[in-house]
């Protein structure tokens, strides 16, 4: 087995774990569960990109992975701030939470 075969096999393995977590996106039950699985997609994506970048000899993929890692939280923040409303709409006066 060549080294790049190993990297590709590893990337395939990570893609399969992503496929497992997809089941949770479909099943839910709460929106938090689905969002969480989507987040796992992003983080596994970082790993897959690094491995492919090594295997395919494309160092540019490290930059894609960096962007994935940097922006992994943006969707989660949008989700907690705008979708999952906790009932309260008033301006909270303390920022201690």
């Amino acid at each position, binding site marked *: 087995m060549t080294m790049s075969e190993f990297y590709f096999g590893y990337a395939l393995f990570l893609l399969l774990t992503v496929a497992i977590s997809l089941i949770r996106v479909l099943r839910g039950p709460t929106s938090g569960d689905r969002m969480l699985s989507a987040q796992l997609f992003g983080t596994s994506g970082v790993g897959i990109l690094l491995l492919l970048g090594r295997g395919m000899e494309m160092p540019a993929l490290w930059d894609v992975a960096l962007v994935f890692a940097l922006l992994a939280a943006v969707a989660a923040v949008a989700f907690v701030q705008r979708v999952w409303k906790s009932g309260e709409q008033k*301006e909270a*006066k303390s920022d*201690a*939470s």
Partner: protein
Amino acid sequence: MRRGKREISIFSGKGLYGALVRLVAFSLLWAVLTQGGGGWIIGVPAVVLATFLSLGLHAPISWRWRPMGVLRFIPYFLWQSLRGGIDVSRRALHPKLPIDPAVVHHTLLLPPGPSQVFFANTINLLPGTLSADLHEGHLTIHMLDAGLEYVMELKRVEERVADLFGVELKRR
């Protein structure tokens, strides 16, 4: 401070020291990204802008990490998160799924401010704990296993965080 009233005032940081530290840190990061530094024609404006934004967005309370505290904290944190990972792997891979979750409340001994927030985020990577809500010094924690000696454990983490920020723990 009311929601949304957070003004972006550039010089709210504590003096020149904070600005310099950030300037150096961001320049270093730029050098890391560009692999050896280059493209400073874009780099300099980006670093300066990042520094201004970082100072402008910062909370009025000033805080600093103590260098020695950081050195002591990092190995502890790495070891604990490794433990956390192993613990959770054992549970998730075990056919019987041995979990005994509980929601517990922990009154923080750390003073209000960034150290509390840092603590709440840190314990998400430590064995079996997930912070659910932080409200006026009371932290609601979800535990994977109620049987863990969590009170002592959390106290120890708090001591470490206090050491990192150079703050005193409240006496109970």
